[in-house]
């Protein structure tokens, strides 16, 4: 038993505890029950099984990973212990649920739940135990696999799982693009069929493995980096142009929402990410843009000018930017938390003003402004989401171009210097007043653009559309994506705006997932999914120093 020597089990009780608590929680709050009938891969396994087996596998993997090099087999022992531990906890749980009446307190611990946990047959507690131990061993085994293969397996499994989760939406798309025969061959009753799932898994895992080995990329004609860039840009542009046709109405609508939040994210990214000014009232400029568009174009009794969308658009941006400039002035001397509170107040003031009786004759109070016309191209009104998509695409393209140019210009440098140290920036000759006002103005302008398009897209606007949650959401998405990073902002918008929309069938649990995602991100990857260089350096400066010795 020489390989048992120095077996370090100090962390195991904690991991066992956390794994057990998570497994118990997802069962007791009703998640497992809700997803009991929801197959991810038809006939093979359900969403519920992933939920109550997944945490054990994950923590077994973590435990096994900590085994010292050269004694990797110790990891399997830890994984086994963890699996047995969680298995026992769950068996006791099932026994208690069957023999005691706990439903008066835990209403979600139902006979149905027990059926699911025991794999729908009598004496299933043993099966549950074995399943948990096997998951733990699988997790442990993953730690033994070489890095490249493990990454490939995880990517493959992740993509297959995601496709399985989104299968209902995908089935609809497949049906309208390729006919119902192919669609039902791949996806039946909301889940992936076994064979397509296996093919998908192998394909994705294979590609991922080859990419890591650097075997792909040598295929095909060799291009100069500049040519590769042109080809890539062309391909992406082409894809973006035909995207609504591939996606269909519903997914295009989701994409449009992502686009609007991305637009706001780009603006807030300038204020918070580059200039370091924490703005919690960002929704105010979105509201100002939307109300300006509504007042200028509405054909209802509150419409002021009745001009067209395209004429009103630049005015909306200008008005929002002006508001940003005006808000900027009183807060010039404030930093950090104080600034956040003042901007928070400003955001609320705008919303309450829109709700107030004072402004009711002009902007309609709680009834809002109705009859906002759609943008017109010639005689054609852009009513369908597929048509609005192009308006948003143009807006996003302009904003992205401007953000990139501004970030890389002297102004971008000024913002970064100011974010780092205001006094030193001033000693370098940077005019702080101009620099701050410029950040507020440009950021507000982007938000105003998003608001204007939003008003026209919806056709009517109400004060309650502009609550604090929008500011928080935009802030979260740029932080999750990667503060200061433009691709990061897009990824953040897709994850925090797109996914909750697509996962509608998971009801309120998607907000639980949202919260869990935010917390895990901040703990494990505070720099975001696609961090900017500078932020990454800041958050990992300690690591580098350690390496440097």
């Amino acid at each position, binding site marked *: 038993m020489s390989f048992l020597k120095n077996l370090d089990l100090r962390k195991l009780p904690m991991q066992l505890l956390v794994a057990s608590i998570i497994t118990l929680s997802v069962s007791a709050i009703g998640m497992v029950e809700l997803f009991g009938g929801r197959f991810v891969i038809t006939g093979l396994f359900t969403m519920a099984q992933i939920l109550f087996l997944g945490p054990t596998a994950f923590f077994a993997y973590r435990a096994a990973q900590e085994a010292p090099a050269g004694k990797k087999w110790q990891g399997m022992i830890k994984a086994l212990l963890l699996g047995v531990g969680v298995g026992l906890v769950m068996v006791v749980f099932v026994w208690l649920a069957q023999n005691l009446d706990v439903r008066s307190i835990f209403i979600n611990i139902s006979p149905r739940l027990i059926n699911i946990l025991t794999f729908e047959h009598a004496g299933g507690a043993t099966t549950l135990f074995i399943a948990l131990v096997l998951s733990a061993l699988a997790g442990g085994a993953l730690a033994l696999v070489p890095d490249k293969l493990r990454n490939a397996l995880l990517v493959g499994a992740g993509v297959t799982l995601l496709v399985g989760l989104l299968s209902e939406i995908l089935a609809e798309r497949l049906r309208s693009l390729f006919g119902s025969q192919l669609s039902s061959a791949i996806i039946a009753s909301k889940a992936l069929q076994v064979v397509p799932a296996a093919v998908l898994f192998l394909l994705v895992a294979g590609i991922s493995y080859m990419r890591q080995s650097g075997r792909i990329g040598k295929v095909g004609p060799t291009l100069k980096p500049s040519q590769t860039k042109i080809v890539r840009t062309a391909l992406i542009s082409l894809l973006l142009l035909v995207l609504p046709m591939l996606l269909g109405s519903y997914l295009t609508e989701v994409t449009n929402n992502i686009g609007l939040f991305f637009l706001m994210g780009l603006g807030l990214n300038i204020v918070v990410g580059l200039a370091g000014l924490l703005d919690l009232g960002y929704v105010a400029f979105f509201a100002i843009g939307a109300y300006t568009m509504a007042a200028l174009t509405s054909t209802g009794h509150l419409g002021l000018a009745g001009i067209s969308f395209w004429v009103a658009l630049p005015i909306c941006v200008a008005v929002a930017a002006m508001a940003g400039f005006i808000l900027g002035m009183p807060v010039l001397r404030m930093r950090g938390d104080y600034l956040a509170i003042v901007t928070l107040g400003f955001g609320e003031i705008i919303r309450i003003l829109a709700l107030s009786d004072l402004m009711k004759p002009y902007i309609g109070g709680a009834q809002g402004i109705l009859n906002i016309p759609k943008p017109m191209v010639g005689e054609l009104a852009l009513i369908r989401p597929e048509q609005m998509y192009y308006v948003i695409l143009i807006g996003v393209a302009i904003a992205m171009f401007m953000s990139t140019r501004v970030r890389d210009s002297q102004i971008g440098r000024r913002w970064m210097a100011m974010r780092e140290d205001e006094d030193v920036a*001033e000693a370098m000759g940077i005019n702080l007043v101009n620099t701050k006002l410029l950040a507020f103005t440009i950021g507000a302008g982007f938000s105003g653009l998003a608001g204007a398009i939003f008003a026209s897209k919806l056709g009517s606007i109400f004060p309650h559309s502009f609550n604090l949650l929008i500011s928080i959401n935009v802030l979260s998405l740029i932080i999750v994506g990667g503060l200061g990073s433009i691709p990061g902002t897009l990824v953040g918008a897709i994850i925090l705006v797109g996914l909750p929309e697509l996962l509608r069938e998971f009801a309120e649990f998607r907000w639980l997932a949202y919260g869990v995602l935010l917390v895990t991100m901040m703990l494990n990857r505070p720099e975001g999914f696609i961090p900017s260089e500078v932020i990454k350096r800041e958050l990992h*400066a300690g690591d580098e120093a350690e390496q440097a010795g």
Partner: protein
Amino acid sequence: MAMLEVNNIHTYYDKIHALKGVSLHVDQGEIVTLIGGNGAGKTTTLRTISGLLKPREGSVKLNGEDLAKYPAHELVYKGVSMVPEGRGVFAKLTVEENIEMGAYIDNDKARIERNKESAFTRFPRLKERRKQVAGTLSGGEQQMLAIARALMAQPKLLLLDEPSMGLAPILVDGIFDTIKEINQDGTTVLLVEQNASMALAIAHRGYVLQTGEIVLSDKADKLAKNETVQKAYLGID
């Protein structure tokens, strides 16, 4: 005529009367040091000169021109650079980017390159670490970087706020040698220091600041021999 002339300045932090009529002058080519204990008003004086604080009374003149009308960030254009207390390097930027930030006001790329090269010649340590993030440098290296950055604007007058603060004694020697060299290359220096013995060793003249007032001023070597200074700041009984 003096290059920098500070005339009877009174600076307040709200109701706290921090500077009670400080007057001093710095001539072209000099190293002048301002010494004093904690809370004497050294940093306040420097921040008033650089425009970060505005005096309620009195004037700061550079080559005869009143600086009151210029905001702090325009002083660089007038040839005054400051190295703030606690160094204030941009921790997340690399050494090279920090140095480039110093040339913010300069639009001549060739000149920036030349100045950068001479900064690296002056501080070979920084050249070795040009791609390293400034936050990971040692205290002494950060001080070098802060000075190198300030020099990028090719100042006529360099304001240094406690360059020796928090540094190991062996590094302090190096920093003071560097200040002396910079001065010999033609930059006038106003040096605020708590480390009075080192400051007086390289300075031409010195002022002693106590609770917001100048209590003594003389040639540096004479100040170093002054009984009060020896007792209060040099630790000699």
